[in-house]
């Protein structure tokens, strides 16, 4: 480690606790009764959580009625509609789980870029790609219904992510929990693409992507309590 800051006028500032090393250390705390997770346990746990989240999505996709136009919709259109939330999810989850150069997590600037890029990509690509057929009459009814269904689809991934990443972020926990919340919600938004045929940007942003905002804010607010190691 090298110190790369010029302390100038306080370069000779004395260490206020010089000599503390000579004092005996406090006794080592007793190890917790439950054996803490090892690195490989954690890796398995997180892989299981990811698999569980995908299974959860798959089950709901089987249970719910698929959108009417799924059979006739051009593959490229469907692919584009799915790719947008998947890209947003990947950005957010990559930002949340990146170990960073020293295992503490990515630098704040980079983390913030990843985290903010996720909703930015979702909003930008949706506005760019979506058709302009907004039915104002039924907009809120549809949007609220889709928001609730997206919430149901997102519940599993969110709970599993919380289980797998609980108290494991040593720094910037609110940012990383916000990213985790947004990523899981984006996965739900991707699943929603198979259930809802309304492709207008306003509907997709509010009905399918609204959960990203809610989960992101909740993650940021609860991040310190739930995610901080």
């Amino acid at each position: 480690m090298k110190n790369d800051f010029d302390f100038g006028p306080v370069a000779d500032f004395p260490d206020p606790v010089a000599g503390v090393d000579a004092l005996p250390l406090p006794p080592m705390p007793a190890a917790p009764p439950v054996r803490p997770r090892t690195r490989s346990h954690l890796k398995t746990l997180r892989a299981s959580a990811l698999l569980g989240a995908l299974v959860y999505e798959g089950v709901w996709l089987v249970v719910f009625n698929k959108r009417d136009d799924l059979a006739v919709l051009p593959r490229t259109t469907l692919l584009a509609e799915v790719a947008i939330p998947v890209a947003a999810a990947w950005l957010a989850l990559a930002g949340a789980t990146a170990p960073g150069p020293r295992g503490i997590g990515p630098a704040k600037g980079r983390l913030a870029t990843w985290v903010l890029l996720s909703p930015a990509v979702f909003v930008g690509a949706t506005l760019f790609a979506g058709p302009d057929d907004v039915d104002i009459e039924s907009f809120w009814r549809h949007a609220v219904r889709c928001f609730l269904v997206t919430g149901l689809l997102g519940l599993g991934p969110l709970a599993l992510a919380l289980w797998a990443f609980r108290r494991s972020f040593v720094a910037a926990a609110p940012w990383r929990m916000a990213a985790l919340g947004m990523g899981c919600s984006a996965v739900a938004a991707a699943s929603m693409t198979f259930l809802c045929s309304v492709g207008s940007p306003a509907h997709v942003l509010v009905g399918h992507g609204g959960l990203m905002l809610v989960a992101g804010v909740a993650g940021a607010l609860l991040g310190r309590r739930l995610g901080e190691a």
Partner: protein
Amino acid sequence: MHRYACGEDGALDEVYRLGAPRVRAFLARLCADLALADDLTQEAFLRVYRARGSFAAGASALPWMLAIARNAFLDHIRRERVRRDHQATSAEEQRGQPVALDNGSDRAVMARQMLGVAQRALMELPVRQREAFVLMRFEGLSIDEAAEVLGTTQAAVKILVHRACVAIRAALDREDTGRVGPRAAAGHVR
């Protein structure tokens, strides 16, 4: 730490033996109370145990431990703030009752003896500035490492440390003039 993260429980003693002195010194610099620093060191190591699986392979253990110790310190500050608020609101009910204070332990006495002008100057800093200054000045972390431990940007760390340096210099100058002042004043009277 790598061996402990991989599940070798026997490495725990070594982790504590090598890490605890650095963590305790870091916490003592932050809170200026050795007894409290000892308590927080124990709490930090409990967190280290629990979070061992998230320690990345090949990473340096010290910044990771310091980040966890910092979390323990900040949680302590928050708890204290809540406790103080609660005490303030219930002060009316408790009026007339003796308040028990228990900061007379040997460790606390030794800590008080150890902490002088430098500690006062350090403690006058806002917590964020103090953390950044201690990490870079005493723990020897680079700007990048300090930024990661504090969960902030490198530019913010530079600003925090610069402000801390300015504030400490001012505090030391005040202390100097305070020491010189009375003598000069006494000379003037004579």
